[in-house]
């Protein structure tokens, strides 16, 4: 990819900034060839990759090097785009929101500073991947069980900071973060919470600070560069019991949610409960053309045939309880009794006991895996996906309402319906997976129209996305419009105060510094 300069930066100043960065981190860790720019592009871009081009990437190894990079960025007005490991697949990968940003790649920062099984927490750097942390726990034989997302290839902190979700009792990853170390836009290094005290022992254990608590302002945020953070990890349970049930009809999701939410709120089920639709189970069985060889959405009659042939329900409920064996048995009886009121099919029960082997796809037992990404092969070609992800109150009525509306819109666009609801508490994250072939322009255009229609429909009905791709960060931020977008305006004041030159991730989640405010609304999908 050819060089795209950031707004307002001359080629001479760009070259000077690159030389200065080379001096700060070493010439090999400043990557500005065309091939490097390609490597930092969004491989799943809905449309051409050069809508969101990086000018290059810089990869510091220490906090001091990050501070030096930020200082140089301020000096030359070179905007940075921070990524942890850059595996934010479906949301932009490692590509910047604003063209010409230099990617600040923290993938070399892989130190695990603390890994404490007694209190169940770690202090880690952004380059530590789920795989790295998992393997360290296994090597040290520590009784800890991680919570991992669908894509285990990414960064533990990066995923949590972008509000990623997993499927154990610790599935709300951002809630496990405790105590941040952050480089601000002016180069200052701060620690949040009790970490504001030098050598405080409870920094990563107590979730508040003395005074206002700032921690989560650094999540989905361009207000600082998180250089390390505390993360709570669940003590490994003695046993875990999985209860599996296929739910036959799409509309059954209403009673399923109304059955599960009280169990979740009442403490019978602790995990974040993942309920995928049937296509989630089909995508790893082969390619779409093996099951339906026409371009449009798979028709209802064929869906019914496939469900019968592969013995799938429309939804798959996979509940897991964790802890003492007798407690789990008692919980299972409560859960089974609740489901028996609606369905006669018995639940399949699968026990796991500490020391039992886990397999490569045991994500609900904290095993990181990239296998769910195999779904990319479903459509063939240079396959990609987007996730439309509104947050819905965890009641059957609200979930059914969203389901019916989004299903109709997706069907009207002749696209396969593939949804999941994850009950994380009083709400569900509803992820609608939209898969497409990037080389099929008509398909890409259709996906973009569909995505816009879904955002508009959700907003009109009182729902918003919890996370989105680069190309929709501004439109989705627009939907958060209470008092003429008061929250955005407040955040942008904070942004200008902490980062006067606006050099940290301008445009992230629709927050623009004054310095680059003219870029708002540009480079959309």
């Amino acid at each position, binding site marked *: 990819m050819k060089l795209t300069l950031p707004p307002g930066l001359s080629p001479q100043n760009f070259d000077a900034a690159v030389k200065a960065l080379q001096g700060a981190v070493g010439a090999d860790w400043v990557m500005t060839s065309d091939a490097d720019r390609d*490597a930092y592009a969004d491989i799943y871009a809905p449309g051409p990759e050069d809508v969101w081009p990086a000018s290059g990437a810089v990869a510091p190894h220490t906090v001091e090097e990050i501070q030096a990079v930020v200082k140089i960025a301020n000096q030359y007005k070179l905007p940075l785009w921070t990524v942890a490991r850059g595996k934010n697949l479906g949301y932009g990968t490692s590509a910047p929101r604003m063209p010409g940003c230099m990617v600040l790649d923290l993938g070399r920062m892989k130190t695990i500073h603390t890994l404490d099984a007694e209190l169940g927490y770690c202090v880690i750097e952004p380059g530590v991947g789920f795989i790295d942390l998992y393997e360290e726990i296994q090597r040290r034989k520590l009784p800890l069980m991680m919570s991992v997302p669908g894509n285990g290839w990414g960064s533990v902190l990066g995923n949590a900071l972008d509000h990623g979700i997993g499927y154990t009792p610790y599935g709300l990853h951002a809630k496990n973060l405790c105590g941040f170390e952050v480089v601000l836009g002016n180069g200052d290094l701060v620690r949040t919470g009790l970490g504001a005290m030098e050598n405080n022992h409870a920094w990563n254990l107590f979730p508040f600070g003395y005074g206002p608590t700032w921690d989560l302002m650094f999540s989905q945020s361009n207000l600082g560069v998180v250089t390390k953070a505390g993360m709570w990890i669940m003590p490994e349970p003695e046993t875990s019991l999985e209860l599996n049930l296929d739910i036959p009809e799409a509309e059954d999701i209403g009673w399923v949610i109304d059955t599960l939410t009280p169990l979740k709120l009442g403490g019978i089920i602790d995990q974040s409960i993942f309920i995928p639709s049937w296509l989630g189970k089909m995508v790893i069985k082969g390619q779409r053309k093996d099951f339906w060889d026409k371009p449009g959405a798979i028709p209802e009659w064929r869906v019914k045939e496939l469900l019968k042939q592969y013995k799938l329900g429309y939804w798959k409920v996979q509940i897991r309880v964790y802890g003492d064996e007798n407690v789990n048995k008692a919980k299972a009886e409560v859960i089974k009794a609740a489901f028996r009121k609606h369905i006669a099919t018995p639940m399949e029960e699968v026990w796991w006991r500490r020391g039992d082997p886990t397999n490569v796809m045991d994500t609900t037992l904290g095993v*990181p895996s990239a296998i769910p990404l195999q779904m990319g092969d479903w459509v063939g070609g240079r396959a990609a996906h987007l996730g439309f992800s509104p947050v819905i109150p965890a009641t059957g009525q609200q979930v059914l309402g969203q389901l019916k509306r989004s299903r109709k819109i997706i069907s009207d666009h002749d696209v396969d319906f593939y949804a999941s609801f994850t009950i994380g508490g009083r709400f569900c994250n509803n992820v609608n997976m939209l898969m497409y072939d990037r080389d099929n322009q008509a398909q890409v255009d259709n996906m973009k129209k569909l995505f816009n229609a879904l955002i508009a429909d959700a907003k009109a009905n009182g729902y918003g996305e919890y996370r989105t791709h680069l190309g929709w960060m501004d439109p989705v931020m627009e939907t958060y419009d209470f008092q003429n977008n008061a929250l955005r305006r407040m955040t942008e004041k904070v942004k200008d105060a902490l980062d006067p030159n606006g050099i940290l991730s301008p445009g992230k989640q629709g927050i623009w510094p004054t310095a680059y405010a003219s870029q708002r609304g540009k480079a959309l999908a």
Partner: protein
Amino acid sequence: MKRALVLSALALTAVLSLSACDWLKPKNAEGGAGGAPAGGPPPLPPYQMRAQVNDADRLNPTSDGGALFSNHCGACHLAAGMGTNLLTARQVAAGNKQPVGLLADRKDLTADYVKAVVRNGKGAMPRQTRVDITDAELDKVAAYLGKGK
């Protein structure tokens, strides 16, 4: 027919991944209800630990190519990994009766081809940055995998 081939490819992938058989025991051998029904697909293999590498200078790595491959490519290319599964399925779909999904077992890869795929991506595989794998690390990995002429 094609569908059956693809499905059998995935089952085959699991079988090809077998290097030790102890995990073939049913999960619920000792007490507890449920478990995989008899005659179903073979159980999935356990998580594959990658080799640990601790090169102080990733621009001049001292680890060998096999360890670097395991560490940097192992998220997808060890037994039953995503890349292994897809490569196996692709070879079966192409009519290959003895697919070799594990890159480490391939005899036909050349070092240049490995480097090109790592940097340019291919199919479901994204391009790898020089932070993912440095040029020096990739040279060693390519030499390790490049058993072809």
